[in-house]
């Protein structure tokens, strides 16, 4: 009998070109996504070493981080942003890489457009110069973020070199409560493990909570794996995965589909496989979550008070710095805190299900006057769905406007910055100091919590509305 192996081992081992003794594995990358921020220096590197792109058809380019989310038909105002967007276009054209730039019908956030067009498939290795590449793990792929030196490696040799991470499994069984979404599940896990708790590991999510989750929900969960320090997260492909993929633009068709499907069905962890570390939780423990500090591990159930320093894993000095930045104190209630901005979007929660969830609460209500809301679809395809499904009408009726696709206020590299000192309930993935703009204060939460805050102007338990 062969040794028991995990989903992660199966995919990793199938890609190892060479094992270096007392060193990393050299492994093949199936799909490589690039965007305008982390690729230009890699292309310069290619030029200075006089190297080409080995397999241009395995790399896909999209512009997202720097793009404006209004008036996309006009020239980009910021000359530095425009320069990066231009560099992506020029480099893609020069090396024959398909490029979905600003204005392209398929343009959007890299981690939204990859899955939506069937580029990311089970059993693949997928990388991008962006830490939230872990999103694609939802399909049973090994997907993770890389640095610019590695972008250059993939372009020039389709390989990177890394030691194999350790294996972690997080199992959650049971039934999720009212208004508890995939975002709450991931924020809950990160609050339990801390922002560094999974460093050195690759995480598999298992149990009926994930089995019953939609593909979009699974993407939200895998997306945030990096926020507990994990290299990435993955979920075994199943009928939900196959149904999602079938017929998408770039998925295999006909006989190739059947062959792929047969392989994909073998991609699961053997029963009895031993992990380096395991955690398990009961779905009933999880309530809608919100963060109150400056790393994603500093979150709690929305009905709870801000914990005392003794009850968090961060050191006392760092914790005090964090609360001070947020303008919060230990033991305070989070519910009822006034907020200024709401951001619905990002590669964590910028998909159609997130807009449906948001609309389910704001429908028939009105945006609070004190709230500025930025609702930003993850891609043009999501934007069209919002319009076709009548969600735009619901949003407009409630006093909201829709922006155009892009990373937007997730990282404040474009014009969408939360002003200093202001509070934003955000469906994105990072609440670091200044992440959404210098001095901005971010509370991470689900689209339902964001919607409840948008209509009341303060942190509100979404269960009141459902």
């Amino acid at each position: 009998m062969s040794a028991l192996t995990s989903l992660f081992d199966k995919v990793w081992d199938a890609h190892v070109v060479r094992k270096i003794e007392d060193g990393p594995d050299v492994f093949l990358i199936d799909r490589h996504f690039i965007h305008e921020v982390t690729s230009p220096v890699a292309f310069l590197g290619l030029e200075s070493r006089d190297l080409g792109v080995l397999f241009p058809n395995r790399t896909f380019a999209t512009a997202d981080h720097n793009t404006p989310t209004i008036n996309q038909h006009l020239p980009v105002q910021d000359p530095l942003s425009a320069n990066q967007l231009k560099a992506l276009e020029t480099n893609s054209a020069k090396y024959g890489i398909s490029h979905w730039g600003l204005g392209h019908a398929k343009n959007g956030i890299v981690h939204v457009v990859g899955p939506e067009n069937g580029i990311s498939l089970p059993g693949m290795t997928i990388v991008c110069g962006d830490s939230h590449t872990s999103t694609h793990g939802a399909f049973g792929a090994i997907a993770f973020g890389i640095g610019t030196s590695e972008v250059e490696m993939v372009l020039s040799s389709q390989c990177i070199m890394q030691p194999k991470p350790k294996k972690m499994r997080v199992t959650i069984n049971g039934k999720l409560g009212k208004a508890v979404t995939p975002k709450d599940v991931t924020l809950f896990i990160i609050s339990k493990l801390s922002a560094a708790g999974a460093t050195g590991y690759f995480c598999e999510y298992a149990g009926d909570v994930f089995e019953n989750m939609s593909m979009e929900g699974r993407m939200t969960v895998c997306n945030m794996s990096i926020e507990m320090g994990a290299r990435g997260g993955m979920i075994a492909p199943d009928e939900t995965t196959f149904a999602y993929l079938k017929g998408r633009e770039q998925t295999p068709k006909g006989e190739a589909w059947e062959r792929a499907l047969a392989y994909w069905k073998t991609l699961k962890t053997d029963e009895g496989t031993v992990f380096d570390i395991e955690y398990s939780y009961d779905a009933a423990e999880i309530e809608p979550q919100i963060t109150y500090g400056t790393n994603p591990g500093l979150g709690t159930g929305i009905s709870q008070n801000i914990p005392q320093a003794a009850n968090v894993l961060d050191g006392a000095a760092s914790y005090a710095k964090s609360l001070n930045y947020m303008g919060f104190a230990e033991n305070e209630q989070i519910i009822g805190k006034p907020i200024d901005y709401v951001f619905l979007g990002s590669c964590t929660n910028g998909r159609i299900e997130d807009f449906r969830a948001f609309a389910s609460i704001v429908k028939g209500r009105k945006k609070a006057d004190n709230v500025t809301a930025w609702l930003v679809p993850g891609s043009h395809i999501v934007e069209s769905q919002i319009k076709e499904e009548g969600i735009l009408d619901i949003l407009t009726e409630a006093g909201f406007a829709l922006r155009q696709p892009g990373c937007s206020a997730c990282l404040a590299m474009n014009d969408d910055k939360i002003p200093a000192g202001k509070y934003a309930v955000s469906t994105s993935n990072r609440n670091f100091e200044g992440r959404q703009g210098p001095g901005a204060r971010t509370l991470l939460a689900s689209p339902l919590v964001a919607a409840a805050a948008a209509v009341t102007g303060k942190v509100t338990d979404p269960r009141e509305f459902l």
Partner: protein
Amino acid sequence: MAYDKFTVLKSTAVPMPIENVDTDQIIPARFLKATSRVDFDKNLFRDWRYNNDDSPKADFVLNNPIYSGEILVGGRNFGSGSSREHAAWAIYDYGFRCVVSSFFADIFKGNALNIGILPVQVSEDFLHKIFTAIEADPKAELEVNLPAQTITILATGESESFAINGYKKNNMINGYDDIDYLQSMKAEIADFADKSLY
């Protein structure tokens, strides 16, 4: 981009006893707009280092002339967050060759090694000793010996060994990088890729 070889580094160190220093602090996103590797050192720790009017914040360690050196000593979980290699470039270009912490985020550690910064992971206890030594004497020197894989507080002679795999160690000592290595095995890669499903 090639980097300088690393063998033994004897230097004073800059202490930053803060946990979870994320790459958004090391270099905020708004400074990532260059298309070449220039000037990232100027914006290293930008929002901790400068006020909104660009005047230096007196209480930040990089603005305190009593601290200097090629070694940056950070708190636990250094380099978490975004994968931006710009964070490592900013640290290297500012003049640091070595970052010491009790724990590094994975991507940062990989990026650092790829561009010639040695991440030295020490025990919580030893990290504390380093901070204490620098507090007692800002000119206290550390010695990082890569061939021997040790880090020593020269004033007290206290020393600890650190881990690094043989391949990366060899690269750092010789100033090689992974791209050189991968180019040397291109035929093997092309064969392998031919047989791959995708």
